[in-house]
C-alpha cells in the first residue's frame, strides 16, 4: 500500500474538532455518518458506533477509549483534512477530555431534541468554552415523535448564550442535514495556529498498547514535522526514542511519510508501556527542546476499591488479567494488598466511579474473570499537628487510603475530604426529593437555574465519598430515570472525620474499620451491624456486634446463641450424606476468620464488604 503524502494538506485546510454530548444523545451515530459522507468508511447498514470498539462501550453507550479519524472532504473546490478527535464520554475522564480538546479548535455539541440539555451537556459545554473553542450546537433526533427542537434551542440560548438560529437541526440516524454540519465545521472552526517550519512539538492525547508493536501514541502536531527515523524525547520522562512509523487514523492506522504541523495521527517509537506515553505529554526532537504544552499532570486516582479473586486459586490468573488490562489504561493504580478475610488481592485506584465499573466490566468481559470488588472509598487527608508524626512522615499533610493509617485526632489539626461539584438536570417536579437527597449527602447548593419552563439545573458541592456508593442509582430511581448527573473535581475541604471500628464480642475486626463523617457514623454503624447480624451464622454463644468510635459504642446488634441445631434423624441411610456435610463444615473451619472466639465465614465478609452492583 502506497503511503500517503500529507504535505498536500497545509495548515489552512485542516480542521481539528471533537463531538461532545450527553450519553445516548447520538455522538457515535453522528460520527458514523460523517465517516460515511467523507468516504472514510463505506456506507452500509452495519456502521453502528464505528469508533466505539469495546463491548463495554457499545453496551453502555459511552466512549471509554477515544478513537480518532481523519476525514477528507472537498468543499467549494478545496480539499480539506478534517480530524475528528473522539473524547471519552464521562467526567471521570475529564482530564483526558481536556487533553483531547486541547488538540482541537472547535467542537460539535450534540443535544437530543427530546431530552434536551442534560448534566453532561453542561459539563462538556464548559470544558469546551473554557478551552475557548468554537462551538457548533447540533440538535439531534429531530425525526423522533416527541422531538421539540424549538424548546431545546431556547435552553441552549438561555444556558449557553448561543443564538437559536445557530443551532443545526439534524437526524444523524437518517442523515438529515449532516452535510450541513460538515460545512459549518469548515466555515466556523478556525484552522490550527502553527507552523511546519517550527521545531517539532507534539501533544500525546491518547495511547494504546499493541502486543506486536508496543505503544501506539495518538499525537497532535503543534509545530514542525515528524517522520520515521527521527529521534524524539518525551518532555515528561526525558526518555529518547527513534520513530518507527507515523500515520493517520481512518479510523484504522494508515502509515504516511510524514505528519506536519496542525495534523493529527499516530506514532510508534519503541515505547514498551503506556506509562511512557502519558496523556498530556509533549514530544520534541532530540537536541531541539521546546516549551512543553501546558496542563500536563499524572492521572490522580479519586476512588479506591479492593479487588480480590473469588477463590485464592485464581490469584495468578487475575494477576495476569490485571497486568494486561492496565497495559492499556495507565490511569489505574495497582497496589498489592491483603486482607485477613479475603486473602491476597489488590487495592486499585480509579479516576472515578464509572472508570471503576468500566474496568471491572472489561475484566469480566475481555478476560473472563470474576472478582470481589469491595465498596469504594476515597482518599482523605490529614494535616498533622504532632511534631513526632510530621518527622515520621517527613511532611505535615498525609493522604489516608487505609483506615488503619488514620491518625488520632490528638495529633491532627484538621482532616480533609475530597469534594466534587455536581451538576443535576431534572424535570422540576422532582426538585423537592432531589434537594432532600443532596442534603442527606451533606451537599451544599451552589446554583439553581430553570433552563426552561419545566427543567431545572442544580449545582451542588458534594463530599466525594457521599456519591461513590449509590448516589447515582438513588437519583435515577427517585426521578423515574429523568434526572441526569455529572460532576467535576472540586478539591479538598475540611471535614469532621472519625474512624469507626466494628467489634465482635469486644474484639475489633480490622477489615471492617471505616473512615466516615461524624454525622454519618451512627446510621452507617447501625446498618453495618444489621448486615453482619444477617450474615454471621449463629454460634454456641451470644455475639455482640458493635460499632464504636474510640471507646464509645454507637450501635449494637445481638446475635443470639444457637439453642438447638442437632439434626433429628440419623439412621443407617442418613450417615453418608450427613458425614459429607459435616466434613465440608470441618474443612470450612480452616478458612474461617476468627475474631476472638467468633468465627466469621469468608462469605459474610464478602457480603458486607462487597459493592452492590448497579441495577
Amino acid at each position, binding site marked *: 500500500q502506497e503511503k500517503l503524502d500529507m504535505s498536500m494538506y497545509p495548515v489552512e485546510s485542516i480542521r481539528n474538532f471533537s463531538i461532545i454530548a450527553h450519553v445516548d444523545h447520538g455522538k457515535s451515530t453522528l460520527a458514523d455518518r460523517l465517516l460515511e459522507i467523507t468516504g472514510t468508511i463505506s456506507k452500509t447498514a452495519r456502521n453502528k458506533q464505528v469508533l466505539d470498539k469495546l463491548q463495554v462501550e457499545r453496551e453502555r453507550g459511552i466512549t471509554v477509549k477515544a478513537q480518532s479519524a481523519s476525514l477528507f472532504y472537498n468543499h467549494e473546490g478545496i480539499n480539506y483534512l478534517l480530524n475528528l478527535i473522539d473524547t471519552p464520554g464521562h467526567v471521570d475522564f475529564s482530564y483526558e477530555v481536556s487533553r483531547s480538546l486541547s488538540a482541537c479548535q472547535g467542537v460539535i455539541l450534540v443535544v437530543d431534541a427530546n431530552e434536551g440539555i442534560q448534566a453532561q451537556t453542561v459539563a462538556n459545554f464548559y470544558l469546551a468554552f473554557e478551552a475557548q473553542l468554537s462551538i457548533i450546537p447540533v440538535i439531534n433526533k429531530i425525526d423522533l415523535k416527541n422531538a421539540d427542537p424549538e424548546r431545546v434551542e431556547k435552553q441552549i440560548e438561555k444556558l449557553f448564550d448561543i443564538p437559536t438560529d445557530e443551532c443545526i437541526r439534524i437526524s444523524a440516524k437518517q442523515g438529515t442535514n449532516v452535510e450541513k454540519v460538515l460545512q459549518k465545521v469548515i466555515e466556523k472552526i478556525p484552522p490550527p495556529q502553527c507552523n511546519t517550519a517550527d521545531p517539532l512539538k507534539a501533544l500525546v492525547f491518547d495511547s494504546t498498547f499493541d502486543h506486536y508493536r508496543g505503544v501506539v501514541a495518538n499525537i497532535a502536531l503543534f509545530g514542525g514535522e515528524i517522520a520515521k527515523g527521527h529521534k524524539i524525547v518525551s518532555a515528561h520522562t526525558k526518555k529518547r526514542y527513534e520513530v518507527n512509523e507515523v500515520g493517520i487514523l481512518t479510523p484504522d492506522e494508515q502509515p504516511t511519510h510524514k505528519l506536519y504541523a496542525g495534523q493529527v495521527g499516530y506514532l510508534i517509537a519503541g515505547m514498551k508501556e503506556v506509562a511512557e506515553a502519558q496523556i498530556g505529554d509533549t514530544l520534541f526532537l532530540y537536541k531541539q527542546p521546546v516549551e512543553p504544552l501546558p496542563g500536563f499532570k499524572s492521572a490522580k486516582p479519586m476512588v479506591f476499591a479492593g479487588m480480590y479473586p473469588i477463590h485464592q486459586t485464581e490469584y495468578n490468573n487475575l494477576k495476569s488479567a490485571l497486568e494486561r488490562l492496565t497495559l492499556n489504561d495507565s490511569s489505574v493504580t495497582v497496589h498489592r494488598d491483603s486482607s485477613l478475610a479475603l486473602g491476597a488481592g489488590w487495592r486499585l485506584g480509579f479516576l472515578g466511579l464509572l472508570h471503576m465499573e468500566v474496568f471491572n466490566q472489561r475484566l469480566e468481559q475481555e478476560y473472563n474473570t470474576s472478582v470481589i470488588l469491595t465498596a469504594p472509598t476515597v482518599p482523605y487527608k490529614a494535616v498533622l499537628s504532632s511534631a513526632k508524626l510530621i518527622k515520621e512522615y517527613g511532611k505535615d499533610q498525609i493522604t489516608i487510603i487505609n483506615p488503619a493509617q488514620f491518625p488520632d485526632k490528638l495529633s491532627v489539626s484538621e482532616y480533609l475530604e475530597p469534594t466534587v461539584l455536581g451538576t443535576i438536570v431534572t424535570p422540576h417536579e422532582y426538585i423537592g426529593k432531589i434537594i432532600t437527597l443532596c442534603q442527606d449527602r451533606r451537599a451544599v447548593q451552589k446554583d439553581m437555574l430553570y433552563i426552561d419552563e419545566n427543567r431545572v439545573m442544580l449545582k451542588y458541592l458534594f463530599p466525594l465519598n457521599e456519591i461513590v456508593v449509590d448516589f447515582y442509582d438513588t437519583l435515577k430511581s427517585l426521578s423515574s430515570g429523568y434526572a441526569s448527573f455529572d460532576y467535576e473535581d472540586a478539591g479538598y475541604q475540611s471535614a469532621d472525620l472519625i474512624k469507626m471500628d466494628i467489634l465482635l464480642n469486644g474484639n475489633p475486626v480490622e477489615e471492617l474499620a471505616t473512615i466516615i463523617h461524624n454525622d454519618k457514623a451512627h446510621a452507617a454503624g447501625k446498618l453495618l451491624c444489621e448486615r453482619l447480624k444477617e450474615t454471621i451464622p*449463629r*454460634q*454456641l*454463644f451470644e455475639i455482640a456486634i458493635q460499632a464504636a468510635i474510640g471507646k464509645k459504642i454507637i450501635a449494637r446488634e445481638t446475635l*443470639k446463641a*444457637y*439453642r*438447638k*441445631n*442437632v*439434626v*433429628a*434423624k*440419623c*439412621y*443407617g*441411610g*442418613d*450417615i*453418608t*450424606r*450427613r*458425614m459429607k456435610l*459435616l*466434613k465440608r*463444615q*470441618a474443612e*470450612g*473451619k*480452616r478458612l474461617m476468620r476468627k475474631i476472638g472466639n467468633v468465627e466469621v465465614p469468608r462469605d459474610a465478609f464478602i457480603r458486607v464488604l462487597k459493592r452492590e452492583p448497579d441495577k
Partner: protein
Amino acid sequence: APCPQWPYCRKRCSYCSFNTYVVPAVDEGAVRACLVREAQTLLRLSQVHSVSSVFFGGGTPSLASPGTVAAVLEAVAAAAHLPAGAEVTLEANPSSTSTSRLAGFGAAGVNRISIGVQVRGALPAAAPKAPCDAIVTALPPQSLDDAELRMLGREHTAAEARKAVEAARGLFPGRTSIDLLFGLPGQSRDAWAQRLEVALGLCDDHISLYQLTLERGTALAAQVRGGALPAPSQDLLADMYRTARTVLVAAGFRHYEVSNFARKGALSTHNLSYWRADQYIGVGPGAHGRFVPRGEGSHSREARIQTLEPVAWMREVQSQGHGTRSRVVLSPLEQLEELLILGLRTDEGITHERWGHFSPQLSLQAVFGTPGEAQALQQQGWLVLDSGGLRCTWAGLAVLDSLLPDLLWQLQRV
C-alpha cells in the same frame, strides 16, 4: 442387622423425600423373591454368624403381606443364626394396620412395631438390614390431630392412628414405638405441649421424636417457601424440643438418643447398632449398609448402597444375586469419623471400649484429652470426657451439629 426395605407407599406424604414409590400394583411375588435373594447373598458375603435384629422399613412395609416378611425372616434364619429373642421391627402405617394384619405380621416373626409417619431415615428406606442386628419398627403416629395430619398429607385420621397404636400395643405389649413430629408450620408451644400429653396417654414404652425437617423438593417445603405456611422460628423449635425432653424424662423415659426415648429398657436394638457403628446390611432398593465382606476375604469395613430404583434393583438382583450399586472401603479415619458423629448422638456417648475397637493405637484420651477444640467445648459445658468415654452434656446434645465440625477437625489433625 439386616434392614429390608419395602419401597412402596399408597400415597406420598407432603414432607417425605425418601426413596418411595407410589405404583398402582406391585408384583409382590417378584419383590419378595428379590428381597430373599439379596438377603441371602449379602449375609453370605458378610459371613455373619448371628443376627441380633431385623428392621423392615420403607416405604410402607406394612403394605407388604405377612408372607413376604416371613419369607425374608426365613432366609435370614437360614443364612445365619436368628436367635429367638432377636428384635424384629416392622414400620407400620396406621391406615394399613388393622389388628388382623398386625397379628399376621406377629405370626410371621415380627415382635416390634413402629407406628407413625414415615418419618425415618433419609434416602434408604428400610430394607432388611442384614447381619449383626436388625430391627423392624412400627409406624408412629406423628400427629394425633386431623388438621395436622391433613397438612402432612397423611392418609390416616387421628382416630385411625389411635386405633392402630392400641391394636399394636395389644399384640406387641412393651414393643410398640410411636413417632411424634414437632415444629409443624403454625404449631404453637401450647399446642405442642397438649399434643405431647395426648401422646403420653396413648404411647407404649418407646417414642421417636422428630423435628419436622423441610426437605427440598417436598410439597410441604414448597408451601412454606412460597409463604402459604409459616416457618417456625429457631427459638420456638428449641423450646419445643426442650419441653419434650423434660416432659418425657419426667414420665420415666430415658433419652437415649437425640430423637429417641424409651422406658423399661425398650431401646431399639437395631437403631442402636447404627449409632454404635456396628455392622448392618441393607437389603432392597436404596438401602445402605456397613459391613466387612469377609466372604471375599476382605478385612475392611465398606459403605454400601443398593440400587435406588426398584425395577432396576430387581433386575440386578435377578441377574447377579444382589443390587449393590456402590461400595466404598472406609479408611480407619473415616470409620472413626462415623463413630464420632453417630456415637455422640446417644446418651452413653462413645465408650473407651468402642473407640478402642476402631482405634487400638490412639485412645480417646490421646485424641480429645489434649488441648484443643474438645477441651474448649468441655470447659464451655457442651461435652464430657471421663472414665465413661466421650459424650454430650444435656445442653450439648441439642447443639451437637455445632460441636461436630470442631471435633472432626481436631480428629483429622491427629
